[in-house]
């Protein structure tokens, strides 16, 4: 298989790239890792007339924390960079858990987090993770930069709010109020398959072991990524207890809209959502207790 014909540009600056997108109109696509776009083009599901490859644009391959704890991930940061990241391992348990579960190791060498968010596949793992953390996407265009909350970034399967001349340059995760806990669990038939069920849980726990913020994102159990708002709400304002964890797990399962398919029955998938929420939160509680013991 090979893509239909397209013009290819590999600019060396963001301004140049944005100019090319502006001139390319609706028929231009940005190429970063290419691990979703190239397969789509080969299958002719996507047939852009212009491909703007941003791999030669300097200064987009980074992930770093601002002094206030805000995490910034550049558009050319590969999944593998995040998988190996000491910063994520020590400060972002949900992201650190998800990174090694994206696709397979070879795809992770090229694919990018920001590209995955833009691709807006309802089965994508990063969208759930970034949603659970209350993150956003920074987009740049001739009109300047704007920050788009992830909750309003995706408009439908494979659709996002970016204008044709906008490039998503960065993903942003806001700082935690308290200590972060959480995780990502994914049920897949084999490595590299789409998630049968994926669950992202992110909680922030204050000194008094009270949950100050909670977010739960679900992958693969609906036509789009699902934010389990009610489930997260029952966790906040109190310590994690077996009761609150059980209640959140039930509400997350209720928020799922799974369909029976070759990966499993709707009932099974819903049950796995509940199980995963419980497992992640039970683990969060344990790791928080351990931290607290060490600190004491």
């Amino acid at each position, binding site marked *: *298989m*090979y*893509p*239909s*014909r*397209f*013009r*290819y540009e*590999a600019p060396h600056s963001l301004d140049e790239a944005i100019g090319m997108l502006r001139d390319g109109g609706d028929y231009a696509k940005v*190429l970063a890792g*290419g*691990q979703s776009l*190239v*397969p789509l*083009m*080969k*299958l002719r599901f996507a*047939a852009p*007339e212009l*491909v703007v*490859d941003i*791999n030669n644009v300097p200064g987009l391959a980074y992930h770093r924390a601002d002094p206030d704890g805000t995490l910034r991930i550049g558009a050319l940061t590969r999944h*593998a960079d995040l998988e190996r990241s000491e910063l994520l391992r020590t400060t972002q348990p949900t992201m650190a858990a998800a990174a090694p579960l994206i*696709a*397979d*190791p*070879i*795809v992770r*060498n*090229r694919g990018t987090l920001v590209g995955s968010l833009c691709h807006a596949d309802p089965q994508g793992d990063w969208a759930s993770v970034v949603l659970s953390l209350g993150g956003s996407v920074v987009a740049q265009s001739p009109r300047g930069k704007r920050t788009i909350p992830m909750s309003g970034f995706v408009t439908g399967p494979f659709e996002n709010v970016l204008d044709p001349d906008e490039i998503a340059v960065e993903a942003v995760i806001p700082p935690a109020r308290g200590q972060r806990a959480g995780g990502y669990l994914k049920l897949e038939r084999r*490595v*590299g398959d789409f998630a049968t069920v994926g669950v992202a849980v992110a909680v922030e726990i204050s000194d008094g072991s009270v949950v100050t913020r909670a977010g739960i994102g679900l992958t693969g159990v609906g036509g789009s990524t699902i934010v389990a708002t009610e489930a997260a709400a029952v966790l906040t304002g109190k310590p994690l207890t077996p009761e609150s964890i059980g209640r959140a797990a039930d509400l997350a399962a209720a928020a799922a809209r799974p369909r029976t398919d070759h990966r499993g029955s709707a009932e099974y998938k819903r049950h796995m959502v509940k199980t995963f929420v419980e497992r992640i939160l039970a683990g969060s509680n344990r790791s928080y207790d351990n931290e607290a013991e060490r600190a004491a």
Partner: protein
Amino acid sequence: MTMVYDDLGDEATRDVPLRRIKFTINGAKKVAEVEPRLLLAHLIRHGLRLTGTHTGCDTTNCGACTVLVDGSAVKSCTMLAVQADGHDIETVEGLATASELHPLQEGFREEHGLQCGFCTPGMMMAAKALLDANPDPTEEEVRWALSGNLCRCTGYQNIVKSVLWAAQKLRSQAAE
């Protein structure tokens, strides 16, 4: 290089310029003129006639087409040839010298790491990327590193053994 494509009728009106790219493959410097839509796997197999790199699924799943780009394992069916411009590519043909097999190749022979052989070049290149970064991997780390490569014959047992065999040999060579 000249490639012949099926005329699907949908793209005859689009005339796109060829692009000249320079790259290194298995240590040799090359220049090529390619259509932007040419995939790296096709450049390697048809343009360079290096048919050790196999295309299996052609859908980014199987890993048979795995090559190293600047030392990092990449599925060459999922990268455009134009993107190789300025980069260093290694294929399975770059493993052996004129007189000696690479320890990975020896390992696959010693431990019976292949049956039909179709996945083998991709397995070896993915394993090379692993061993370059981690000369003393555990069995678990080998399995993890090869989890993007499918084999339908061996059940993976002997592939894992082969890679561990090669790791051992490379370490003892390095110690000499």
